[in-house]
């Protein structure tokens, strides 16, 4: 369980998109926060098992694309519907979970590792989205949007690194 938890906490390519989604949910309000909080860990868990089952990983720069999409939505303070947030959270969990699970051979200890990973996702979404929901002064919400623009900038550079690596 601790392996999965630490894997998530030490993987910026996973934790940053989760933080971005939590920021977005926090900006939109408590209902969005609750939806992300419960849907993202579940979809991540399912994605992990699907990845382990199919043992295939895409060569696309998934992390860079996630940074661009979710960072961009935060920076733009996108007025998403709850349904759109649900789809985005589900996709993020499935894709990143799949990438976590792909390449890991099946064993029963994986269940604990994935549970730890998902616990990490749950805690990060809970803390970040709750923190943002409580922000009231206008400049603090602008600071959150600035953080989103930094995530986009990081995603652009990451895309460049991926292109250079070929």
């Amino acid at each position, binding site marked *: 369980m*601790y392996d999965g938890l630490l894997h998530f906490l*030490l993987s*910026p390519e996973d934790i940053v998109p989760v933080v971005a989604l939590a920021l977005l949910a926090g900006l939109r309000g408590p209902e969005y926060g609750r939806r992300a909080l419960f849907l993202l860990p579940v979809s991540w868990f399912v994605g992990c098992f699907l990845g382990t089952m199919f043992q295939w990983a895409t060569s696309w720069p998934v992390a860079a694309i996630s940074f661009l999409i979710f960072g961009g939505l935060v920076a733009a303070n996108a007025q998403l519907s709850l349904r759109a947030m649900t789809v985005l959270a589900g996709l993020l969990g499935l894709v990143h979970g799949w990438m976590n699970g792909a390449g890991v051979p099946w064993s029963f200890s994986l269940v604990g590792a994935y549970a730890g990973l998902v616990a990490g996702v749950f805690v990060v979404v809970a803390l970040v989205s709750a923190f943002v929901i409580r922000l009231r002064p206008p400049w603090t919400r602008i600071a959150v949007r*600035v953080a989103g623009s930094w995530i986009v*900038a*990081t995603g652009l*550079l*990451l895309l*460049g*690194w991926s292109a250079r690596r070929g």
Partner: protein
Amino acid sequence: MKRPVCGLLARWLPLAVAALCFSQSAEAHVQKGEAIGFLTGLRHPVSGLDHVLAMVSVGLWGAQLGAPAVWVLPVAFPMVMALGGMMGLMGIPLPGTEYGIAASMILLGAVVFFELKPPLWVAGSLVAFFAIFHGHAHGTELPPGQNGLLYSMGFVCATGLLHGVGILIGLVHRWTWGQMFLRLAGAFTASMGVFFVWKAFA
């Protein structure tokens, strides 16, 4: 009645220490270059005076212009700079990078000195145009063998924090002496830009 903290510690600390002694090590992996990637990225933008002055000037100008420019400019600069960095990483050439950086210092210093207040889209376009040169220079200078993601995160954070420093300094704009101080800072940046142009030609 609250239980004393010392009593709680005395009761639970031995148990926590014992639990730690019997716990197994977790096997999370640390990727190649992660240890120094973030710090190298954080240091990179502050390693050159030309970049530092230009980025701080963006914050100063934003503070002079007030809302919404005070946050639009520092958002536009890192994003477009990262686009330039991506071009540099992908090997897309950009001629006259050093001249562009020096010109950015002259122009950004001049707008701070003259306290120019153009429409937001003009200010944003000017900042974004020069950000391409700064980003491209950084992109081509990025060291190989380090974790790209953490390097990029450090690099972007340092750039944003430099803008933040500029905005914080720019808060003195509310006082008369502060306005004079900002104009002097703009003049200094522009004169350093002239020096860098001369250096680029030499």
